[in-house]
């Protein structure tokens, strides 16, 4: 068990975006959180990666309590994430983005000036092949298509040293061909022992991908289990069809 | 006994700062950039008033109206020639700020060319002092304080009750949204510059009567007005007036205990403290200021 969340709560004024959420993520498994839009999935992600401060409850990662850590500390402790609306550095190139993700010694001026920089070229190529991003290294991110920007965001999350990968709606607004490609990428990430937690509101994308599924509605976890159980679960259908 | 006189002095200078600050804050809250050249609108108003009274010998009341209208138009001229094109190109606030200081330097030196650098004063019988039991004040100073307080109310009503005011608040809150629901933010910007500069006109006339005229007083005036706006809340026009009174009180009581040389130091310290601990000021709205 790599990630353990206990009754995590987040209130915006009166309304509860996330209410007493508890869940556990198994190592080297693909776990998915599904639920209709506005069910608090993204808020949960933002609480885990500390873009938002929780009102109470706590989070354990690799056995350590990370509730009190700052956002960059949580990222440094091994959690990488992507964003639904991709965040990239608009004046930098693909190579820059991956160099920043890969390096962990660039924050100290002395090290970054004098220490001989490891040649990342080979690692960058490997990652770009992994995410099927076939673009010259020095293209500016502003010249990339929406899909390519998604792939680069994924590549950066993979490049950053991590033991848990959080994917926020990896295929939202992506053409069907690319959807399958991303599904493939996630699959072989998991093949070489990657632990993945992804959010998706599209149920059937997740069904044959995830090993374990949690279903959220109105900020609470209403069901969890193997994909097969979830598919037949009445409460899940109600939440989605909203009768 | 002198304490009451200090309070009166604070109110007088506070009112002058308020007259400068409210125009600046109106323009800032609508257009979201710091119009530093507002200081020169005040100076131009003073010199126009001097010109029409002393040189052209125009009647007092007509001169006032003439100066107010001309200063308002000067505000629109500045927006049309300098700020409009910059905003069309979506220049950042910093670029607009630097442009406004460029405009300040430009017109300050033009005035110096036209009117020369010697000190000018306007004599008026409004400055015969009246001695009360514990303080002394002149009719002009009473008018200044009363005008400033009336303006506090008028501007509050303008912003809250009138159509223009509502449009200004809408544009200042969200320019794109405002234009979607049919508010022509260009026209609103023109209005804000006209009214804002007209307020500068009022400030210019009173400063011409109360103090002496020099081309170089623009910079000092706008720095004090901007400090008053920050203290009161730069996004709230009535707040900027309140902030200016606080600045007036702080300065006068400050130099009552310290030397007069510290007057500006007190203002800058207050500015810095508010920027750090209460950047949206007393009445301002905390919108996107903190992380």
């Amino acid at each position, binding site marked *: 068990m790599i990630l353990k969340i206990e009754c995590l709560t987040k209130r915006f004024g009166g309304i509860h975006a996330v209410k007493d959420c508890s869940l556990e993520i198994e190592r080297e498994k693909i776990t998915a959180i599904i639920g209709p839009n506005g069910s608090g999935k993204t808020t949960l992600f933002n609480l885990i990666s500390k873009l938002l401060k929780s009102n109470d409850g706590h989070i354990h990662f690799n056995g350590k309590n990370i509730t009190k850590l700052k956002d*960059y500390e949580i990222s440094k402790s091994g959690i990488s994430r992507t964003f639904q609306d991709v965040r990239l550095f608009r004046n930098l190139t693909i190579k820059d983005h991956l160099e920043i993700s890969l390096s962990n010694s*660039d924050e100290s001026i002395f090290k970054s000036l004098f220490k001989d920089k490891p040649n990342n070229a080979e690692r960058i190529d490997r990652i770009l092949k992994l995410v099927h991003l076939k673009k010259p290294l020095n293209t500016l991110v502003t010249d990339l298509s929406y899909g390519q920007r998604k792939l680069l965001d994924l590549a950066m999350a993979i490049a950053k040293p991590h033991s848990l990968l959080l994917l926020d709606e990896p295929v939202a607004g992506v053409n069907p061909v690319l959807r399958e490609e991303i599904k493939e990428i996630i699959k072989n990430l998991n093949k070489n022992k990657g632990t993945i937690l992804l959010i998706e509101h599209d149920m059937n994308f997740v069904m044959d991908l995830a090993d374990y599924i949690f279903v959220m509605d109105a900020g609470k976890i209403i069901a969890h289990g193997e994909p097969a159980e979830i598919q037949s679960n009445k409460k899940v259908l109600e939440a989605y069809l909203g009768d | 006994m002198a304490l009451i006189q200090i309070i009166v002095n604070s109110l007088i200078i506070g009112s002058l700062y308020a007259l400068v600050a409210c125009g600046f804050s109106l323009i800032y809250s609508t257009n979201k950039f710091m119009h530093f050249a507002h200081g020169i609108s005040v100076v131009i108003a003073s010199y126009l008033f001097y010109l029409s009274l002393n040189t052209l010998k125009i009647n007092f009341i007509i001169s006032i109206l003439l100066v107010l209208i001309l200063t308002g138009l000067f505000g629109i001229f500045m927006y049309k020639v300098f700020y409009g094109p910059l905003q069309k190109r979506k220049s*950042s*606030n910093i670029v607009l700020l630097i442009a406004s*200081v460029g405009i300040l330097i430009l017109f300050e030196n033009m005035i110096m060319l036209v009117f020369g650098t010697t000190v000018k004063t306007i004599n008026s019988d409004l400055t015969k002092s009246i001695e009360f039991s514990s303080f002394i004040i002149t009719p002009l100073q009473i008018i200044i304080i009363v005008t400033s307080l009336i303006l506090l109310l008028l501007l509050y009503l303008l912003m809250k009750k009138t159509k223009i005011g509502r449009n200004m608040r809408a544009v200042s809150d969200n320019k794109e949204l405002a234009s979607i629901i049919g508010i022509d933010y260009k026209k609103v910007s023109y209005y804000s510059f006209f009214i804002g500069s007209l307020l500068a006109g009022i400030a210019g006339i009173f400063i011409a009567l109360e103090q002496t005229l020099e081309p170089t007083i623009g910079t000092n005036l706008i720095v004090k007005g901007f400090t008053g706006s920050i203290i009161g809340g730069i996004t709230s026009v009535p707040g900027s007036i309140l902030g200016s009174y606080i600045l007036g009180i702080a300065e006068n009581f400050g130099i009552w205990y310290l030397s007069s040389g510290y007057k500006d130091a007190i203002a800058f310290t207050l500015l810095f403290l508010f920027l750090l601990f209460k*950047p949206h000021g007393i009445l301002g709205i905390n919108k996107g200021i903190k992380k």
Partner: protein
Amino acid sequence: MIENYLIHILILIGIYIILAVSLNIALGYTGLLNLGHIAFFGIGAYTSAILTREGIPFILALIISCIIAGCFGFLLVWITKRLKGDYLALATLGFSFLIYSLMLNLSSITNGPLGISGISRPNIFGYFLKSNFEFLLFVIFIAIISCMIMYAIIKSPFGRLLHATRDDELGLRVLGKNTIKIKYKAMIISSLFAGLAGSLFAHYNGYIDPTSFMLNSIIFIFTIVIVGGIASFKGSIIATFILFIIPELLRFFAIPSHVLGPTRQIIYALILIGILLFKPKGLFGRIDLE
């Protein structure tokens, strides 16, 4: 004889290149809207002048004034780290006004409005830089070293983080980088070199007073970076040349002397506004702030 005057202008250009490039590190590369840069220039100048007046050798005084300017840089970021955009610019402007009024009022240390005069020419290991030409060589040497250091930092992996902090600070934090610490380092580098430039200015001019660190000079140095183009190294260098040579050229025009002064200021203001209106990214810039 003309080259004495040329040397004088080149010395000032050398000093202001260090100042402009160091401002660009904070403003252009890291996106910190620092209107208070001239305060570090003033702090460096006054520290160096006061230390050498107390008999401390020039080189030591130079280093100490850089360090003290750096500390003030750290202080400014620490104080304003919760602000952004307009309010950060306002706070830094307030900071420079505050430093100005301290220089004016702490007469026991800074002589107040009288300023400090008779600041000694630098002596490096016993060799006095008497003539301007020697001083110019010294300034060129320091300017080249400073530019190389700053250029190396910008081109290093750390430099990439500066760009990333400007473009999307949150995005960078999610990649595990402590952006507050990055901003501290950027401002310390920027203020350190501004202090260095201040010290050189004090020892060249031989006289400093608070008025040379006020609004006109705040906007002058800022305009150099804007005209050159933000986040453009050579932009800042070339713009420093341009913005120095133009006002000096005006001295040669046969403008009737009693309108000479105001006309010069008007032409300067028109150039500034013209650049902003017609070449917003500046001469060599590719980036704008928002």
